[in-house]
């Protein structure tokens, strides 16, 4: 088999028939679609229907996707369906079923895929008879097959019985092999496939035997089989399969050898061949595989390129897209520009649909309106409002906006329908962690551990639970377990690093975070956390560098802006600090959230105002924080300090008091209080002293009622006067009290 004989890399495996070897004919047919049906005498009936991409299709099938819609004859209409095609191909053997386009190809295809009919209707079926004849013992297990046939019958197809007995022996065995493969009876498939291959020596049979090996998990045998016959050099499909096996075996270098470092099919002119059959182009799959290999080899730059290429070659390659997005290989901006550059036109009438689906998965840090538009489009046009992926998009949006409780609610709704949806679960777990839902976390991780003991998310959940209950070492154990199971699972990595950060082990935390930042170039979080660690350690220049790196990736995250504010605050660059904190404030206002981060941003902003001497604003800010977040000793202390500086002694003492009431050992507050009390002592007890004022008011009020009015005026006047004659207090600094948050 030469390369020429194999389908072009622009086609999918749909083109590869599991049966038979007259490749030449097939290739011819590929070019001369008109004759597809009758020029393939060897084409044999297939009972096993195709459920997967790599499953079988006969040569006619490759036309059922978009391009051949021009073919309008009834015959061709029938060929739309791979299933119908099968029968059609039996023309020589049985009466052709020249019929009917029942609503187009997809209907037939979908019918073949439907599972609901497993217990098919009790309608008599000729085909059932057929299968009963060929494999009498298997008739019940053939239900699915029968069902699909029943579907055909429903659509008024007249199918005469196919006389399998007339087939050559090898073909019968091939049928057998395929059916057992479809029914996941790998030993049967292997047994028979081996025999067929031994009998015929056909490379096609070798390929299918390799498929059997792959499916049964004996990757090394598949590789051996394919290399022994040099199939991997002669056929693209085989090459792909070999590489896939090698990746499974974690022999990445070998896989790369097979795949080539770059895309060998790349067309220098940039001409792009349209996919003919609606499947995923093999070329794209190979690019994807190459990307995976590079990722496994920690060459993320190349991996990113390859995955992008995979998508550029064929937008239908969702795995590549998912890999790019969910593994955080692209920065938010890159994601958006990349998706905008993709050509969805190949999808014809599904163009908008898929584009919206993809957009709904993109980063929610920017272009929120587009995300919303995509979501609405999908919901209104396609009624996907209960689809997990759409819900996930919503959930992700809420999570990015730090609206954890709403997010949690939505997650729970989604999980009610699909309890173990691995797209939702990580966000759900993070939400529970954020909200301190220990109890639910416990339940969820137990359920997961029972059902998916080998899934990384399970152990991520367990780790989060221990993190929540403050058992750091256990949490670390499970986070690392999770990240071993899936090294590209970013949350687990970051959780792992957090365990060190929480324990104050900066060095380890730094190394863990920096590994994470290498693994996940598309997310700003590792760099942000790195910066925070350095900030904690007091290495401001390094911290700044990391923050800037992080800023380059995602300049929209209020947390990052907050940290940058804190950094400049620490560097005594208060103007800059104010700038960033204001930005953060803007961002969080846009997100209208009321979480911990909201509080810390406001606190920090207030501190910056304090440093800049904008006392009134600082007071306003501090008060706002106290009102929304409840009392906090440091905030109260800082507020007291500002009041002291404004020479509002009474207020200062009051807030310092309440600060000390919350935490009696607050040294700064104690110092400040002492100072305030001294100032209080030195305040002259003159006309303007509040005490004198209030005593006057009281005297008046107990006197005549008519004088009350005057009393107010007097009071307000006096108060203002008292506030005016300000006196600068010392320069002693209050503790910064910056709130640093890990998440």
């Amino acid at each position, binding site marked *: 088999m030469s390369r020429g004989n194999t389908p072009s890399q622009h086609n999918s495996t749909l083109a590869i028939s599991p049966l038979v070897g007259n490749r030449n004919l097939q290739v011819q047919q590929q070019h001369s679609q008109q004759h597809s049906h009758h020029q393939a005498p060897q084409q044999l009936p297939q009972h096993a229907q195709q459920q997967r991409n790599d499953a079988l299709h006969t040569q006619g099938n490759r036309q059922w996707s978009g391009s051949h819609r021009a073919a309008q004859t009834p015959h061709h209409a029938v060929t739309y369906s791979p299933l119908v095609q099968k029968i059609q191909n039996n023309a020589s053997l049985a009466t052709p079923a020249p019929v009917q386009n029942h609503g187009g190809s997809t209907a037939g295809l979908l019918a073949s895929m439907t599972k609901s009919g497993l217990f098919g209707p009790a309608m008599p079926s000729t085909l059932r008879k057929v299968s009963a004849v060929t494999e009498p013992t298997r008739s019940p297990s053939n239900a699915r097959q029968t069902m699909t046939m029943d579907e055909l019958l429903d659509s008024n197809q007249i199918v005469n019985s196919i006389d399998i007995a007339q087939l050559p022996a090898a073909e019968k065995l091939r049928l057998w092999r395929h059916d057992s493969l479809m029914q996941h009876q790998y030993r049967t498939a292997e047994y028979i496939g081996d025999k067929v291959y031994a009998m015929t020596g056909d490379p096609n049979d070798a390929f299918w035997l390799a498929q059997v090996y792959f499916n049964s998990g004996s990757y090394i045998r598949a590789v051996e089989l394919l290399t022994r016959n040099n199939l991997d050099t002669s056929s693209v499909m085989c090459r792909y399969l070999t590489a896939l096996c090698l990746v499974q075996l974690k022999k990445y270098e070998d896989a790369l050898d097979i795949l080539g470092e770059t895309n060998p099919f790349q067309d220098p002119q940039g001409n792009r061949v349209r996919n003919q059959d609606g499947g995923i182009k093999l070329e794209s799959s190979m690019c994807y595989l190459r990307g995976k290999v590079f990722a496994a080899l920690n060459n993320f730059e190349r991996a990113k390129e390859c995955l992008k290429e995979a998508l550029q070659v064929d937008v239908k390659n969702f795995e590549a897209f998912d890999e790019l997005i969910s593994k955080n290989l692209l920065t938010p901006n890159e994601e958006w520009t990349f998706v905008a550059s993709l050509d969805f036109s190949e999808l014809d009438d599904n163009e908008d649909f898929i584009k919206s689906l993809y957009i709904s998965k993109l980063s929610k840090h920017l272009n929120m309106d587009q995300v919303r538009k995509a979501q609405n489009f999908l919901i209104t046009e396609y009624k996907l409002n209960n689809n997990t992926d759409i819900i996930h998009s919503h959930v992700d949006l809420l999570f990015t906006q730090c609206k*954890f*409780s709403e997010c*949690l609610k939505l997650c729970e709704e989604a999980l009610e329908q699909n309890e173990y949806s691995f797209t939702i679960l990580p966000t759900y777990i993070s*939400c*529970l962690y954020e*909200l*301190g*839902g*220990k*109890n*639910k976390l416990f339940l969820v991780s137990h359920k997961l551990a029972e059902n998916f003991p080998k899934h990384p998310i399970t152990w991520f959940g367990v780790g989060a639970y221990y993190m929540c209950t403050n058992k750091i070492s256990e949490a670390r154990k499970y986070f690392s377990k999770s990240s071993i199971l899936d090294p590209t699972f970013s949350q687990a990595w970051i959780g792992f690093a957090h365990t060190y950060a929480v324990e104050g082990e900066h060095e380890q935390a730094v190394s863990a975070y920096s590994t994470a930042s290498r693994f996940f170039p598309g997310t700003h979080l590792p760099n942000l956390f790195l910066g925070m660690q350095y900030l904690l350690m007091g290495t401001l220049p390094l911290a700044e560098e990391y923050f800037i790196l992080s800023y380059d990736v995602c300049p929209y995250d209020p947390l990052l802006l907050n940290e940058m504010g804190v950094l400049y605050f620490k560097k005594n660059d208060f103007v800059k600090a104010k700038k960033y904190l204001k930005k953060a404030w803007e961002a969080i206002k846009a997100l209208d959230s*009321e979480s911990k981060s909201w509080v810390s941003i406001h606190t920090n902003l207030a501190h910056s105002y304090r440093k800049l001497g904008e006392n009134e604003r600082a007071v306003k800010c501090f008060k706002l924080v*106290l*009102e*929304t*977040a*409840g*009392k*906090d000793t440091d905030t109260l202390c800082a507020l007291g300090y500002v009041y002291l500086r404004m020479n509002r002694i009474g207020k200062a*003492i009051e807030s310092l008091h309440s600060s000390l*009431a*919350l935490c*009696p050992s607050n040294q700064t507050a104690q110092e400040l209080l*002492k100072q305030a*009390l*001294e100032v*209080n*002592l*030195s305040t*002259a*007890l003159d006309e303007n002293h*509040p*005490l004198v004022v*209030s*005593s006057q*008011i*009281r*005297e008046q*009020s*107990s*006197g*005549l*009622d008519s004088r*009350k*009015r005057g*009393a*107010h005026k007097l*009071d307000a006047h006096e108060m203002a006067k008292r506030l005016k004659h300000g006196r600068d207090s010392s320069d002693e600094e209050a503790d910064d009290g910056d709130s640093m948050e890990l998440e």
Partner: protein
Amino acid sequence: MDLPSNQLLIEIRAELRESASQLSRLKLYNSSKWSAEALWGMCEIEPTPIVSDLMKNDESPLRSRSNANAIESQRSPEKQGPGMDSSEYNLYLLASSLFDCKEFDRCAFFLADSQHPELLFLKLYSKYLSWDKKTQESVESMLTAGDVKGVDGMSSSGDGNRSRDNIERLRNHEAGDGRALKKFQKSVDLDNGESTSVPTILKELNDYLSKDQEGDESAGIGVALLHYLRGLLYKLQDIPSNAISSFLYSLSLFPYNWTCWTELISCISRSDESLLLLKVLNEKFISEKSQIMLKFFKLSVFQEFNGNIDDFIQELDYLLSIFPNFAFLKTQHALINYHYMDYVSAGLIFDQIIKLDPYRLEDMDTYSNILYVMQKTSKLAYLAQFASGVDRFRAETCCIIANYYSAKQEHEKSIMYFRRALTLNKNSTSAWTLMGHEFVELKNSHAAIECYRRAVDINPRDFKAWYGLGQAYEVLDMHLYSLYYFQRSCALKPLDKRMWQALASCYEKVDSTDESIKCYSRALQLSLNSDQDTSILFRLAVLHEQLQDIASCKTYMVKCVEAHQNTDGLISDEITKASLWLARHEAKHKRFSEAYKYALGVTHGTSQEIEEARAIARECRRRME
């Protein structure tokens, strides 16, 4: 099986609805709950006109529900406007019976999606109550743990290094832990990601009310109560200005909510604020009808912030003419006597109240205070026995018993009962203050400070607690602190000379002679019989001496000695000292006859003083001769 006919269903539903409201009217809460749950769980029936008829019928029993004043105003059949529809009414029945059974979380759950203002109020109020209950439970366990087995109970929950026998330490720690808890429990966590906290409730409330803002003044009681709840939450959040405006709005919609009035008082902390508030209220409540509530409010304000006593008496008389048998008014009368230290008449009024309404325990703790001050121990003992017979687990009862033990000098026991009282009602300031006094008796300043602090945390208008704080810090020689506290108490009671006196002595101790003189002069002004207050006069004299202002000093000394003439021969230390000083002073200035006169006046005092006086007298006599 045949499906039950629509008619049957409707009848069943009507019966259930009837039973739920009847049972709850007659306080069989659990039965009522059962009916309401059954009603809620019933299948859907297509609405027919009959249903609404039945609805109207069973509305009437509900209207007479005593505690559901919320419903009364608008449940009347004629006024269908803000009423509930059938399913909302079912929901209301369920929620109210759950509320009656104190299942607040459940109540909130069932009402989760309701938009009717009354249902919303029930939901948020039960959320708030649930939050409050849970926070209090955790604080309470601290209190009782400290109570039952002092240190052991504490060691499990606190940090290390505390001495076992030191009750003072225990108090401090308990307080510290309680505080810490209070902070953490700001948000009650159900451990499954849902948490209630004041801000979250407030947010929901604000969302609703801002949507409903354009709602006219004639909005129903539901909206009024929602505003009241908002005020309550703002107050918890320490935003008194917002709280006041919410309360005012609520009152303008529905003025008969007395707790709202009392909450309104608790939002103001200075007398000038009270004046301003009264002015606003006077403008707001013009109609004769609403004036009544305002008058009640004025009485309460007066109790807290004093004012014109004549006005007060006038208002009280007016109200008493309308409500001659209203115990509340009588109590107000008694309280005002108590505040003016007319204990005898206060006691008499309380006796009347007891006759009128013997099982009313409210304010009886004040009566016990009066009996305590008047040292009528036997009567106090009777009152204590009686109160514990009525209800042993009332905060008031515990306070009375505590007062009784305190009168018997059994301070430990007294403290125990005050604690009990506080467990029952954590917001009782007077209990905290009195407990502080008990600790002072036990010479435990730190514990006393803790108690006073709690008292002022709860009610910053309690001048006794501020004063107690000042005194306790004075004992600890922390004069800067005590100065501030005396200032606070003085700000609350600027017409009380004791406050100014305390302030003055404090200034004196930190060497601020000028300020001290000012305070003493103020105290002297306020003194009813300013010529006879020898101690103030003497202090003033001494301070002027320190300022080398001998002339003023002398005048005060003379005044001090002259006071002697008015006080029927009662001679205080100060008079002796003043006489001695004058004698010395005159002798120095060679006015020996004067000196001799003063020296002779020294008949009391220490032997040294008498000795010195004699020496001066001898010397003067010698010189004069």
